[in-house]
């Protein structure tokens, strides 16, 4: 029994020796030789040259030898397809063997040989084995269908194997059922729309019966399959839940997690006032806690999932805080996850305990863990107001330890605490300032600078402190530079007399000596603000900041819903949707939680619920992207304030002593700025229209604010700006070898534009982009080439705007606004289709004369009139009319009859078709009625959709 010797032969000429041994007459010697071959194969040596000799050993009645030969075959058949044929005969013969173990072995192995010619021969034996009298053979054959499908999907369909497989779901043997379910689920994944599994109450019942009888693995297959089913109503949902709950006591953690997945999903459908709903919630907690006594790897998987469950349904584990306390010997990955969950569960009731724990952790050895623990203390302070004081004093204790990374981490979180509780804990600033020198990480430096700037008036030597940072300005990271700039401007506004020099120094460093566009722009903005209107500057820069919200690092609700549907799987471990890490067609389907259909809340129609992805959960807390992103709000702050500064050079600088100094240098600067930005009249309007109130949360990306600005700038002459639908993904990366295309359509200044965002998610550079349209209903065609001038590197994104003309070839599409697009790059040509809002085609001269309108309205036969309802629209007729005009839908007349406003409107399409509309708006009634009349009634539906889109956005 010492097979290890086979691993050691490494001499040259080995292949020849093996060849001789394989052809030996002695059985024992042959077997030895095959073992040596397998050992070499394992360690990665190429022994494919021995193919014919090894295959010759296949005809044997020694099962051990046969299995070894099969193993070899599976490995090398693909590289030697012609010779692999030699093996077919033996396989076919083995499939007829009286011994079921041999029959199964043959069909199992054959399915693993990925050679086309062999698969052809596989069909007949497989068909027989699927109907074999022995369940062991049947269960093996069921998996074999999935194997064959992976090699040649068409063949499987043509041969009718799918139907046979479906029949096996009703097999008498539970293991056959389980394997058939697994195979079908896998095949169904690559055909998202084929209703292959055909789950209905009857088949679900069969599965639930088999669930009680099959092996632990089979139970997992069945539960994972059940999770894809959407029950018809809450009753069915409850009855399935009742039959699944016993699985929560299974010793196998995977069975438990899969059962949890089914329950979490189906629970969505149960009315909350149902007794059973409460019972189920209670039943879920103990098994989840038990998972934490499993082996560490499984604990990790469980904790990642619990993290999701706690976000979705915090009530389940709210009393179980203690089990998440970190043990000294836990592996680091378990510790970090536990910490995360502890913070999520922290509440007023348990905060004292949690804080005591966190303080212990902050003295541990692992740097990452300690940092996270310190950060957690800060998060507790923000989350539970009553504990803030204790948290701050704990943090101060930690700062006293003088451990460098602890101090830095503490300062970062204290900054957040200041944001949440302004003017409350300033007494600690002195302690913080003592540690200024030890800060070497950008995040900590930025946080400290922010604190100094924010509380400049209370720190006597604030100017000295900031000045000390200024010395090495160019060596700092951008984060610190931006923060320093803002802090010094704040300081200047608070103590103008002493800090003039400082502010000038920083402004010139930022604007003249820096290559960073963000820094430069911010520098210019401050400069201009200070020089034009210091009072306004004060209002802007020292404006009251919105409080930061309490929950951090929450997963976005739609993603969370999807991940809940993937409990137990890799997606739930990575906290990413499967499409983010799975290649090819598998896992593209986005799973969603079912909509609640309970009797009490049955008003919502299920379609709407689905479309909205289950809509947002009740009172979803707003999300802060991450701790470090404080800068985000500063940028917002700079853009949003209610100032209407014109391009006039300032003369009001007298209030501040330093203004003449500044003003001189600024003259030219302001001039150019004024020309660039202020020159457009829309710009002023843009500022005026920008919300005067700060956005309550920070979750809008910084770029959003800027985007709005540019939109406004572009839409010159439009009162409101045309409706532009949000960008959608047209071509997912996995369908286009890594190229992702998303986009939308816009009409800007009379030009239709296709706005594309190209993202390269592949590993190689993409070049040579080109675009072409298929013929379409309105003759849309690119008016120029696709402007992607630089090659698109991996993980790069480029935004392109493609002007479109309407003079291309015309062909009626279904739906009318469908557009088929081909995009080419150096890799391949990709096709996708998208739908454009027809409002892009509404031209600017679409306002009809009143007389003509009346005549035309009468002229168009009544058959061509169509009526639609727009629901839930809360605009008054005035606002609606204005909004519509932005999209070139012109109101010609308005009539008020019995409190009902009738608006008459006209639209002209780019191909000259006129559409006339009558919109009825009743005050207080959110439902509008719209009648459309047009000579080409096909367009009515599309036009109506535009109305809806424009009015609701």
């Amino acid at each position, binding site marked *: *029994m010492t*097979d*290890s010797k*086979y691993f050691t032969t490494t001499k040259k000429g080995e292949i020849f020796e093996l060849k001789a041994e394989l052809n030996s007459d002695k059985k024992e010697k042959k077997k030895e030789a095959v*073992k040596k071959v*397998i050992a070499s194969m*394992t360690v*990665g040596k190429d022994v494919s040259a021995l193919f014919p000799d090894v295959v010759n050993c296949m005809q044997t*009645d*020694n*099962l*051990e030898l046969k*299995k070894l030969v*099969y193993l070899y075959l599976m*490995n090398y058949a693909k590289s030697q397809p012609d010779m692999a044929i030699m093996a077919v005969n033996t396989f076919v013969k083995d499939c007829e063997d*009286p*011994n*079921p*173990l041999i029959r199964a*072995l043959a069909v*199992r192995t054959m399915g*693993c040989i990925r050679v086309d010619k062999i698969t052809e021969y596989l069909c007949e034996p497989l068909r027989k084995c699927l109907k074999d009298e022995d*369940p*062991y*053979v049947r269960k093996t054959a069921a*998996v074999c269908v999935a194997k064959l499908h992976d090699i040649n999907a068409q063949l499987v369909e043509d041969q009718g194997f799918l139907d046979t497989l479906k029949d096996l779901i009703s097999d008498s*043997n539970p293991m056959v059922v389980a*394997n058939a379910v*697994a195979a079908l689920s896998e095949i169904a994944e690559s055909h998202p729309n084929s209703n292959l599994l055909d789950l209905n109450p009857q088949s679900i019942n069969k599965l639930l019966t088999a669930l009680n009888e099959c092996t632990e*693995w089979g139970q997992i297959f069945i539960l994972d399959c059940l999770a894809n089913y959407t029950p018809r109503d809450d009753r069915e949902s409850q009855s399935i839940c009742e039959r699944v*709950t*016993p699985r929560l*006591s*299974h*010793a*196998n*953690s995977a069975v438990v997690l*899969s059962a949890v997945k089914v329950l979490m999903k189906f629970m969505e459908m149960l009315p909350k006032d149902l007794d059973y709903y409460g019972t189920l919630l209670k039943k879920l907690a103990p098994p989840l806690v038990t998972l934490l006594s499993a*082996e*560490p*790897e*499984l604990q*990790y998987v469980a904790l990642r999932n619990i993290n999701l469950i706690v976000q979705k349904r915090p009530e389940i584990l709210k009393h179980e805080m*203690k089990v998440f306390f970190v043990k*000294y010997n836990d592996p680091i*990955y378990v510790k970090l996850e536990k910490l995360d969950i502890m913070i999520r569960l922290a509440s007023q009731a348990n905060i004292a305990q949690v804080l005591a*724990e966190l303080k212990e952790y902050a*003295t541990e*050895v692992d740097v990452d863990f300690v940092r996270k623990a310190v950060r957690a203390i800060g998060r507790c302070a923000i989350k539970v107001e009553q504990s803030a004081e204790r948290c701050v004093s704990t943090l101060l204790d930690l700062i006293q*330890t003088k*451990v460098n990374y602890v101090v830095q981490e503490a300062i970062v979180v204290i900054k957040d605490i200041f944001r949440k509780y302004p003017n409350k804990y300033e007494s600690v600033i002195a302690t913080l300032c003592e540690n200024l020198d030890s800060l070497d990480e950008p995040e900590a430096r930025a946080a400290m600078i922010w604190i100094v700037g924010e509380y400049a008036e209370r720190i006597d030597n604030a100017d000295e402190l900031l000045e000390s940072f200024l010395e090495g300005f160019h060596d700092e990271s951008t984060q610190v530079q931006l923060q320093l700039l803002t802090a010094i401007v704040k300081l200047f506004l608070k103590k103008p007399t002493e800090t003039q020099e400082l502010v000038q120094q920083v402004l010139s460093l930022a604007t003249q000596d820096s290559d960073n566009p963000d820094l430069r722009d911010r520098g210019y903005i401050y400069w201009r603000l200070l020089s034009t209107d210091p009072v306004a500057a004060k209002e802007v820069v020292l404006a009251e900041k919105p409080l930061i919200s309490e929950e951090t690092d929450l997963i976005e609700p739609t993603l969370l819903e999807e991940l809940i549907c*993937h409990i137990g*799987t*890799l*997606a739930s471990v*990575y906290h990413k949707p*499967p499409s983010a*890490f*799975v*290649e090819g067609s598998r896992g593209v389907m986005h799973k969603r939680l079912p909509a609640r259909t309970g009797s009490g809340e049955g008003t919502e129609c299920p379609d709407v619920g689905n479309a909205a992805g289950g809509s947002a959960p009740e009172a979803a807390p707003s999300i802060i992207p991450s701790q470090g992103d404080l800068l985000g709000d500063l940028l917002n702050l700079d853009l949003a304030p209610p100032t209407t500064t014109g391009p006039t050079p300032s003369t009001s600088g007298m209030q501040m002593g330093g203004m003449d100094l500044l003003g001189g240098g600024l003259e030219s600067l302001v001039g150019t700025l004024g020309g660039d930005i202020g020159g457009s009249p829309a710009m002023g309007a843009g500022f005026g229209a920008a919300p005067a109130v700060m956005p309550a949360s920070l979750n809008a990306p910084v770029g959003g604010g800027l985007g709005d600005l540019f939109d406004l700038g572009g839409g010159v002459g439009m009162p409101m700006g045309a409706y532009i639908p949000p960008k959608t993904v047209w071509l997912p990366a996995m369908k286009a070898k890594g190229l992702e295309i998303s986009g939308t359509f816009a009409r800007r200044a009379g030009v239709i534009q296709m706005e594309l965002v190209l993202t390269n998610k592949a590993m190689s550079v993409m070049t040579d982009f080109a675009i072409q349209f298929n013929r379409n209903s309105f003759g849309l065609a690119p008016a120029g080439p696709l402007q992607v001038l630089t090659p698109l590197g991996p993980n790069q994104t480029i935004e392109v705007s493609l002007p479109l003309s309407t003079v291309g070839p015309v062909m009626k599409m279904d739906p009318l606004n469908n557009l088929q697009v081909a995009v080419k790059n150096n890799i391949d040509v990709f096709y996708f289709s998208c739908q454009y809002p027809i409002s892009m085609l509404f031209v600017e001269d679409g306002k009809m004369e009143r007389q003509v309108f009346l005549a035309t309205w009468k002229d168009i036969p009544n058959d061509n009139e169509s009526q639609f309802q727009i629901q839930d629209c809360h605009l008054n007729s005035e606002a609606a009319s204005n909004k519509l005009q932005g999209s070139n839908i012109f109101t010609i007349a308005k009539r008020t009859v019995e409190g009902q406003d009738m608006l008459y409107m006209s639209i002209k399409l780019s191909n000259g078709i006129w559409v006339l509309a009558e919109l009825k708006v009743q005050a207080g009634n959110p439902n509008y009625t719209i009648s459309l009349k047009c000579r080409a009634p096909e367009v009515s539906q599309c036009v109506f959709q535009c109305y809806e889109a424009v009015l609701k956005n």
Partner: protein
Amino acid sequence: MIGGLFIYNHKGEVLISRVYRDDIGRNAVDAFRVNVIHARQQVRSPVTNIARTSFFHVKRSNIWLAAVTKQNVNAAMVFEFLYKMCDVMTAYFGKISEENIKNNFVLIYELLDEILDFGYPQNSETGALKTFITQTGIKSQSKEEQSQITSQVTGQIGWRREGIKYRRNELFLDVLESVNLLMSPQGQVLSAHVSGRVVMKSYLSGMPECKFGMNDKIVIDKQGKGGASEEAAAGKSDLGGSGGGGGKQSIAIDDCTFHQCVRLSKFDAERSISFIPPDGECELMRYRTTKDIILPFRVIPLVREVGRTKLEVKVVIKSNFKPSLLAQKIEVRIPTPLNTSGVQVICMKGKAKYKASENAIVWKIKRMAGMKESQISAEIELLPTNDKKKWARPPISMNFEVPFAPSGLKVRYLKVFEPKLNYSDHDVIKWVRYIGRSGIYETRC
């Protein structure tokens, strides 16, 4: 599903490599070696994603087992499978070591072929596998034997074969508990729980139907209302254990999980535990309790820093169970700072030693009866250091073994019915044993 399975030695050399799916290439073997086994830092996660390929790994002594996939597989299942794989290998050839794996590589391939098909785990019960994967060939089997094998592998009772016969029907129940504690220096219980296992070794003929009963609060309360017929049965049986903590009638079980032989739907409906056991040893159930735990020992630490170069430590342990019972293998581990230069220890009982390599004073006591107290005091000399960082003061941990169940669990009965064979519940010889061990039993100081 699982795309491939690799086994490596500590150097990262491949010992076993079995690929199940076409999307896993040979380079995956190297990717794991380079990125995980040879990685510089400590492993930060048991799941690693390298170039869109996910690797799950577990380590047994210095052997790495890695499962590879490119799909969104059930992660919990993959780990459960890897553990199961280890169990199966251990059952076949003992300890998982490089040598054993090399010696049995043909067997391992054969097993991998059987228990994983196209990446889907199949029946992996050792009992069933051993009937037909034997490394001696199966040609000799008769037709009946063959179909018996296949029906067992695929059947409802995949864990037991028919036709088992014993001259003496016997069963052993072990209630094994590990009691976990985290206590503050002031003696406040921060967290405490017992995780217990009921391990059953049965040597019973035929297909015996078993029913297991314990002092589960829910069952007892129900019976209190509904009449005491079962109680009578329990009284007759000789299984009443010798608890250490006194007269607790019933215990509240937070959660329990069962071996796959237990009928879960029946447990869910009636809370009765009925099953046909596998032959030989099996872990019948696992459970967890958090209420009314008998903490066998209390540790009272006292640490005093005398200047910068000296620490005085005094630790008292108190045993807290019936004086007639004896705890064994008691070990108290008192951590010492890294810059310790010397230690003087005085203890009343047992032996204590400073182990520099482990940075701890280890105090061992062979036996200790209930309701006793013992004490150790130590003087620790420290080297002066410039290190600003304070000593982290890891908790004092303790190991012991006591002959009762700290949760208070008692076995009330285990009834055996075998309708086809002529032996009854009374003929079965039953043995019950309770062992309580320390899990992570720590007191902060």
